[in-house]
């Protein structure tokens, strides 16, 4: 059926072309002067890559979340364009960070989403039945026809551009100045615009003068939200640059035509311009772009313009800007400034007359104008010139003299702004008109409506209607509905969470009643809004998601519209946006059905715009994952074999690629068929198709690894043929796919194919192409990693060339190259052994480039870490240590860990063999500990920490002791980072040589550490407390008890630390100290600390008490602790309860001996008025019961449960949790039966509040003891027809 349509279209197309050619009288071929402005000079994507780079890096980024995608790493626009991107939101430099707008973080490629049109609603053939669709509704055939036209046009434009280029090259020899040649632009217009005036004007319009502004203007137009494809045609027009650069180009409109004519290379531009304006307006545009409050005809300016009805907002913006209130914004509006057609429009003279305010009573500012104005004022305020008084105040009065300005000097203070203040109307003579007062005029006061959230200025465009006072009765049903939707959307977009929630619910509930059309017609333009922020988009997308469910098949006519808006989410930087986009498209395809989805997206598959094709392919893959691959296979097959255009084939194959990336191993069942439908692409005549096909094969192989090699049988041959014949990008992609296929093969084949491909790889080792390099490295890694490849072969065939070509300094400079090279080398090392690799690169440790040394070190680190140093001989060992020492000493950069890790790994791996080098290493360390630079001292100390174990293994205890003394001397270090490292080093020395042998002796060391405990730096604290704890644990007897008490007091302070590790180490240390000097003194200190105010401190104290109790047996602590409960102070009592809670948690079943002792206390606490008492006591019961389950304390626990139970009706969440926990604990200890009996009382209580609580308890009980409960359920009596008795348990034998 599709073919029928295609042929039909082709036929109609032919016809149309013929008639058109006859009418226009412009031959489509041959030497003719082309309507350049009509066709706009053709390729508007000149300078952009038409297809995505071969490496498809963004896919990996997308799917794997591997890297932080940097904006400028994008794969489309050339550098020059990205650099010149104008700041969309100039206010940002002003120091005001607005919540992130989406456009601001998008790159050029992603911004192309704004060029897409929300297409008109389409026909839903399912709803139509057999009826013929209404002529006004766009059917599938219409769209296909239009696509065809677009393509034709694109081809034509391409031809024109080619021709143009040729002509220009001829003309280049002549005197036509170009920007590139550095010659001055064409002479300024001789008329009214004197050079200076021209300069000023230009500044005014373009706001920020200076270099590259022409470009800026261009780009901003690119991004102008409403730019129709036609508008950007201007950009690519060769020779345009010159015009731009011409000062005064905006000048006096009447003369503009002649000026343009004066520009060489532009022929016959009058006609085309007219044509351009006559372009049919697209309905979608009208919705989106129209400024609220604007009706055509309201002002003479617009009424006089034939183009007033056009959706493009450039006309709409003009009058608003000309009003006095909006004056500064006029020039500042980037979209306006960038619109090339204003100045040259013949009607401009009429249109540009300054309308009096009365003519424009209620035109609110557009969002851009408002922003620009705000920014303008801000900057003006900040950068205002200093007054003389201010200067006097700043500068000293004596010793300075105020000079007279030279005669003839007139201060120019940024003419741009000066001009901005007094607008000069274009066209006529600037004459002052007394503005008529208009009290109804709204300035920039944000307007708020009753019951609605505040409206941002940029919202006026969409929600402006709400500001108008209307009488509800006068509205038609449609209008009322529209207003209603608008209100709800505004609430969702800007409202407070409750407002948003209720609006969202209303929208969802009434979706069908409101109808798909009115809903989407408002939501979708909002989503296309250029000022949209992330949060807003998220909310609006959520709205769509919700109403999709409700609308179901009613969405069909809107599928394409929705896709246009949602597809860009699929390539968003933000992971969650991508997920959201996928979800919507999946839901959409479930709601609309496969046929509709295909009908909606089919035309986009061979769209001329690469961006559209790319996003469509991704959307299709989501459809496939939602509806199943098999459903889509026939269609994909047809697309991939399309004869009509390579774009269709390319996109079809890309869909398969995206499916593989999206679905991963879920492609396995369909692998064979997927490979089958794309395999012919490998021999396609189009390079791009070839490339994408091989990338797709790679993606499929990656997704299906390690299975499915048999499915790839068919592509092996073309791949291998391909790599012999191809070059460049295509070859790279072929190699990539081979790289992914080889690991799937069994060893014999892998070996064979590796040898085959290696010839090519070795040849490509020398490639200068970065992309190719990365791929080659990756493929080598993959090939070498497979089983069948022999080490000897690698040694002989790969290694020499590999090291010669890749191990060069340049590779270390690019981060991705660096990483890939290290990985590949490590993989090679895994096959050929450590010695081979280390031997080849060890010399480079002494290379003069530091990044290169670092790369060498990292490789050695990894290789040695994987394989050990067994096959490194004595000579190499020497070289290695020598090199490492050199590299370690020579490092200057901040990224020091690579060297340190490498050093540590190698020395630790050498073990005993490192002995001869240790004195030398220690010498270096000692010398560096004395270095002036803190960084170096720190590294030295860190290194000690790493090699201490090896030194001990080598019997170098004396040396270690010596280092200990040296470190001890450096404890006065002032840099906290270094001090932390020194403490760490001391700790590792103490750990390996033990307390008794330690030098300096512990009794000297510890008093030195006590003051350091006061240090507030985290690293110092952590290392210090670790060391102190270690000493308390192992060598407490070396230190007098009084010193330990002193430390106890210091430790209390450490409980305030932010880092959990420090607090944990501290409470542990309390335990060690208590063990060493007995719990009494420590306990007194801790109990006193319960009185402090800080909660965190008290909590930590309770933990410490519990730990002391655990280490010194509970009976040493409990009496004092329970005694403390008598203190009539809330904090103390709660602290005691909390300590009990931790205590019972830690001592577990030891608790059975103490249950009866603490029961009276708990009774009291569980009856206390204070909520926290009861809460904490409940958690004591929880921990206690869990500890002593099955140990025969059921009586006490039942007793306590009786006290816990009344608390079930508490509402505070913490109490609820604690009580729930206590009940759970009791279930464990007492069995579910008892708790069930408690629960049964309230399951059918008349009061709902009671029932709810009881059912919640029942549910947790049920989950915990489903099976055990069976025996205890109550006997239910039969009731009427229902049998409720369970006889099975009554059975007797």
């Amino acid at each position, binding site marked *: 059926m599709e073919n029928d349509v295609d042929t039909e279209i082709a036929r109609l197309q032919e016809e149309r072309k013929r008639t058109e050619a006859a009418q226009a009288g412009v031959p489509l071929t041959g030497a003719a002067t082309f309507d350049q402005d009509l066709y706009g000079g053709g390729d508007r994507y000149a300078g952009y890559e038409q297809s995505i780079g071969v490496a498809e890096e963004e896919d990996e980024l997308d799917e794997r979340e591997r890297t932080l995608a940097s904006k400028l790493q994008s794969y489309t626009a050339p550098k020059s364009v990205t650099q010149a991107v104008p700041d969309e939101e100039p206010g940002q430099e002003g120091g005001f960070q607005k919540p992130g707008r989406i456009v601001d973080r998008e790159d050029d490629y992603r911004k192309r989403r704004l060029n897409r049109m929300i297409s008109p609603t389409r026909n839903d053939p399912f709803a139509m039945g057999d009826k013929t669709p209404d002529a006004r509704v766009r059917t599938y055939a219409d769209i296909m026809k239009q696509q065809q036209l677009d393509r034709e046009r694109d081809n034509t434009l391409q031809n024109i551009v080619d021709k143009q280029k040729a002509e220009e090259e001829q003309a280049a020899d002549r005197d036509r100045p170009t920007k590139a040649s550095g010659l001055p632009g064409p002479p300024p217009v001789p008329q009214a615009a004197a050079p200076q005036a021209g300069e000023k004007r230009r500044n005014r319009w373009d706001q920020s003068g200076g270099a590259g502004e022409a470009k800026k203007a261009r780009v901003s137009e690119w991004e102008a939200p409403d730019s129709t494809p036609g508008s950007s045609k201007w950009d690519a027009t060769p020779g345009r640059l010159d015009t731009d650069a011409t000062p005064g180009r905006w000048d006096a409109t009447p003369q503009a035509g002649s000026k343009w004519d004066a520009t060489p290379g532009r022929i016959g531009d009058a006609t085309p311009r007219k044509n351009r304006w006559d372009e049919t307006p697209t309905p979608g545009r009208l919705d989106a772009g129209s400024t609220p409050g604007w009706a055509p005809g309201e002002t003479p300016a617009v009424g006089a313009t034939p183009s007033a009805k056009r959706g493009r907002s450039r006309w709409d913006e003009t009058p608003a800007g000309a009003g006095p209130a909006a004056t500064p914004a006029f020039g500042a509006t980037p979209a306006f400034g960038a619109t090339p057609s204003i100045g040259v429009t013949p009607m401009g003279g009429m249109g540009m007359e300054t309308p009096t305010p009365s003519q424009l009573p209620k035109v609110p500012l557009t969002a851009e104008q408002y922003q620009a104005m705000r920014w303008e004022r801000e900057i003006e305020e900040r950068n205002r010139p200093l007054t003389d008084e201010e200067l006097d105040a700043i500068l000293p009065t004596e010793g300075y003299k105020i000079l007279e300005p030279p005669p003839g000097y007139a201060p120019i203070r940024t003419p741009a702004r000066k001009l901005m203040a007094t607008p000069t109307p274009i066209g006529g003579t600037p004459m002052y008109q007394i503005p008529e007062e208009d009290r109804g005029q709204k300035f920039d006061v944000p307007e708020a409506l009753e019951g609605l959230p505040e409206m941002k200025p940029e919202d006026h465009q969409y929600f402006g209607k709400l500001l108008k006072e209307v009488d509800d009765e006068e509205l038609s049903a449609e209008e009322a509905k529209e207003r209603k939707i608008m209100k709800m959307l505004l609430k969702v977009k800007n409202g407070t969470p409750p407002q948003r929630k209720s609006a969202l619910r209303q929208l969802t509930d009434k979706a069908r009643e409101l109808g798909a059309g009115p809903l989407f017609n408002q939501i979708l333009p909002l989503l296309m809004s250029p000022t949209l922020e992330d949060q807003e988009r998220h909310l609006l997308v959520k709205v769509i998601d919700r109403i999709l469910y409700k609308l179901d098949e009613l969405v069909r006519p809107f599928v394409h519209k929705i896709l246009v808006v949602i597809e860009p989410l699929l390539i968003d930087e933000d992971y969650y946006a991508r997920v959201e986009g996928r979800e919507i498209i999946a839901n959409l395809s479930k709601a609309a059905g496969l046929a509709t989805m295909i009908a909606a997206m089919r035309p986009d598959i061979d769209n001329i715009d690469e961006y559209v094709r790319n996003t469509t392919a991704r959307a299709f893959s989501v459809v496939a994952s939602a509806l199943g691959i098999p459903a889509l296979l026939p269609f994909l097959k047809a697309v991939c074999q399309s004869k009509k255009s390579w774009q269709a084939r390319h996109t079809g194959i890309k869909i398969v690629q995206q499916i593989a990336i999206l679905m991963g191993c879920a492609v396995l069942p369909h692998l064979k068929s997927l490979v089958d439908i794309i395999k012919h692409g490998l021999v396609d005549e189009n390079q791009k198709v070839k490339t994408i096909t091989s990338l797709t094969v790679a993606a499929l192989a990656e997704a299906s690894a390690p299975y499915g090699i048999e499915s790839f049988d068919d592509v092996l041959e073309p791949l291998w043929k391909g790599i012999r014949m191809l070059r460049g990008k295509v070859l790279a992609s072929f190699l990539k796919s081979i790289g992914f296929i080889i690991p799937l093969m069994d060893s014999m084949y892998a070996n064979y194919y590796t040898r085959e491909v290696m010839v090519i790889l070795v040849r490509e080792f020398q490639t200068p192409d970065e992309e190719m390099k990365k791929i080659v490295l990756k493929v080598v890694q993959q090939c070498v990693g497979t089983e069948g490849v022999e080490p000897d072969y690698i040694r002989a065939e790969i290694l020499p060339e590999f090291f010669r070509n890749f191990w060069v300094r340049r590779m270390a400079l690019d981060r991705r190259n660096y990483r890939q090279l290290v990985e590949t080398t490590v993989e090679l090392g895994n096959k050929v052994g450590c010695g081979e690799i280390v031997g080849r690169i060890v010399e480079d440790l002494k290379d003069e480039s530091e990044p290169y040394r670092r790369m060498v070190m990292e490789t050695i680190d990894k290789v040695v870490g994987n394989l050990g140093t067994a096959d490194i001989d004595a000579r190499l060992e020497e070289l290695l240590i020598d090199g490492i020492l050199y590299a370690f000493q020579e490092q200057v950069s901040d990224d020091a860990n690579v060297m340190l890790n490498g050093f540590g790994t190698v020395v630790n791996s050498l073990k005993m063999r490192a002995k001869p080098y240790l004195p030398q290493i220690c010498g270096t360390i000692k010398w560096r500990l004395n270095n002036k630079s803190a960084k170096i001292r720190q590294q030295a100390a860190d290194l000690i920490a790493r090699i201490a174990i090896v030194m001990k293994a080598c019997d170098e205890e004396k040396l270690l002791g010596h280092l200990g003394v040296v470190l001890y001397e450096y404890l006065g270090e002032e840099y906290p980072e270094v001090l932390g490292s020194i403490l760490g080093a001391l700790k590792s020395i103490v750990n390996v040589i033990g307390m008794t042998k330690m030098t300096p002796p512990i009794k000297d060391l510890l008093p030195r550490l006590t003051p350091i405990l006061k240090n507030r730096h985290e690293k110092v604290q952590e290392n210090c407390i670790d060391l102190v704890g270690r000493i308390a644990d192992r060598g407490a007897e070396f230190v007098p008890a009084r010193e330990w008490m002193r430390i106890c007091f210091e430790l209390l302070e450490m409980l305030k630390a932010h880092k959990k590790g420090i607090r944990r180490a501290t409470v542990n240390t309390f335990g060690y100290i208590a063990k060493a000097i007995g719990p009494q003194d420590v306990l007194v200190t801790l109990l006193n600390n319960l009185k402090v105010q800080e909660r965190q401190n008290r909590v930590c104290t309770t933990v410490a008490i519990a730990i002391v109790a655990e280490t010194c047996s509970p009976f040493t602590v409990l009496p004092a602790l329970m005694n403390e409960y008598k203190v009539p102070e809330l904090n103390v009592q709660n602290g005691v309860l909390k300590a009990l809670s931790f205590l019972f948690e830690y001592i577990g079943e030891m608790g059975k001996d103490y249950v009866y002792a603490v029961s009276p206390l708990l009774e009291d606490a569980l009856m206390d008025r204070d909520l926290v008492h009861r809460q904490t006591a409940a958690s004591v019961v929880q921990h206690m019961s869990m500890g002593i389950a099955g140990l025969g304390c059921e009586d006490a626990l039942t007793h306590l449960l009786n006290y816990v139970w009344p608390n079930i009706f508490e509402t505070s969440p913490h109490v609820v949790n604690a009580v729930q926990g206590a009940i759970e604990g009791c279930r464990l200890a007492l069995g579910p039966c008892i708790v069930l009996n408690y629960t049964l009382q309230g399951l059918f209580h008349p009061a709902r509040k009671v029932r709810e609580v009881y059912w919640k308890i029942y549910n947790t009980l049920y989950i915990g003891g*489903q099976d055990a409960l069976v025996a205890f359920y109550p006997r*239910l009596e039969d009731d009427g027809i229902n049998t409720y008795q369970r006889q099975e348990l009554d*059975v007797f034998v």
Partner: protein
Amino acid sequence: MATLQDRFNINSQLEHLQAKYVGTGHADLNRFEWAVNIHRDSYASYIGHHPMVAYLAVAENESIGRVKYNLLQKMLLPCGLPPEKDETE
């Protein structure tokens, strides 16, 4: 039912967990529904504990397989058809 507060704490997770079990109940559960849950749980439990099935088999003088089958069948409508709903509810 859930307040704003406990939407963010452990209780919400608990409720989610509970929702995953068919046999859990809520404040609006009626006698019949609860009894059905109890019966199904009971049968499942009997079938799951082999000694229990063996005991029943001896008592009923049936084969173990038959007893299991019977229990399974009873799980379909353990308490008969649901009672008519009240209009008031």
